[in-house]
């Protein structure tokens, strides 16, 4: 499974919990899908699943706005 599918799966299963598909370019911040607590959960998942280290400096909107941007961020971190 590619990174995008895994990230989408995590968000759907653990954050939105509703099983609805999310478009890769959907703005997760504008839609309030990712609030502050959800981002903490997502970061824990990314670190555990992809072996990357997310620092506080990485907690920027441009890294978490869409699934595509999360995928690019994970890839840039070597995940």
């Amino acid at each position: 499974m590619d990174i995008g599918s895994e990230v989408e799966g995590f968000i759907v299963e653990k954050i939105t919990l509703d099983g609805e598909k999310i478009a890769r370019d959907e703005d997760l911040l504008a839609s309030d899908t990712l609030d502050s607590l959800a981002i903490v959960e997502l970061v824990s998942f990314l670190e555990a699943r992809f072996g990357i280290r997310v620092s506080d400096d990485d907690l920027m909107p441009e890294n978490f706005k869409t699934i595509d941007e999360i995928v690019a961020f994970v890839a840039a971190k070597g995940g």
Partner: protein
Amino acid sequence: MLMQLLYEQVASRPDHPALVYGDERISYGELVERIERLAFSLAERGIGAGDAVAVALRDDPWYVICFHAIVALGGRVVPVNPAFKQTELEFCFSASDVRAVIGDERTAGVCERIVAGFEHPAEVISASAAHDQSPTLAALVERGSAQRLSDRDPDEILVYQYSSGSTGRPKLVPRTHRQCVAEAALYGELGLTPEDRILSAIPLFHTYGMGACLFGGAVSGATVVILEDPHPFLLQRHRALEQIEAEQLTVFPGVPFNFRLMAEAPAGADLSSLRLCFSAGTALPRASFEAFGERFGVLVRQLYGSTETGIISANMSDDPVATFESVGAPLGEVRVAIVDDDGVPLPVGELGEVTVSSPAATNGYAEMDELNRQVFRDGSYFTGDLGRLDEEGVLYLEGRKKLLIEIGGYKVDPIEVQDVIEAHPSVAEAIVVGIPGQVEGEELVKAAVVPAEYCEEREVIAFCRERLSNFKVPQVVEFRDEIPKSPLGKVLRKYLV
């Protein structure tokens, strides 16, 4: 009334900045001209005294311009959370009988769908050009004429806000020009001056943001610096820190969540320009107070208010460390009493329900006579908060009688969530409670559900997500054979937490 405050600022300091938003700076003179132009165009479209106009915008200068233009015409602003789902917006629009809705690129489309189903005509005005069918705010300002707006009757309703409560759907809270200007004066009691620069990071649709930034700015002539797109705050805290330092901000009204996240931020910042930091919404944990103070050398003071009353008190003590747990003494003409379950005043130091009498308080909820008789009595509002007063008249809060759940500065009414879950065809009964989150002072929404037939957690969640804002949706769903109750049928919530 409220507009007169802005005219007074224009008369004495027309070029002084009223709003800062990113690189945009708007002086009091420019702000008032845009308000007058928009009001002119809105009046041409038939909006006038008594008309309710919903504002479903993210915080930006348009929000401020729309707010003042509507009320200057005698209209009633209905501020709504732009993250509300369609069913929540429908409820707000129909309960307040809106004549028009102002939305942005995110909300205008859903607003158009909602008003299309209304029996009476309602117009959608958009902040962006993305919606071809809607006139844009910029076009209305462009074609409007800047004409001085006349004063309003102080007893006209200025704003309809929605308050969480223990009766299911949010309650409509009308407040008049007189009451809102009285609240502005209470913010003036905090010593705000034209030299102050206020960080606006609390949503302007919220009573606290409206009071501290819209009213506080208008009464004092201070500059309000609006944080662009402040949500989620975890990703914007660096921007808040940058702006406080770069703009030399002096006043920061926040919630405990803001102060904790800023104290934990990786980047440092010089926040020595801040002279007043207020925390409201829920109790400020000592750990957050200490962490913010140690990190930035700034002491956070607690402030107390409600949708029904506006600001009530603020801790203005000379020693914020020794008094950090207090929310201060009532401001101006506000009076606070502590009463027992029968409404009888209690002696100094005793714990009871906080009641508030204030010139800024609403006269009562719209069309809720029975509830009004319960909570607006003898000229006071019964807050549902528990507290005690000391010998100096300083108030300390110690919890709530009402069953509200605190989520990141928002209050979630468990009954509203229960009502939604119980509307699911597979659910027989549901009880919603707040359970402790990972961080002190923060809660999660938990639903205990008795199914009528086989049902999965995700079905309940999906049902809620379609109908409720995300912050109200349960993070935990527990299926049970029955809800624990006392012999008298009272739900024993402590067994669900």
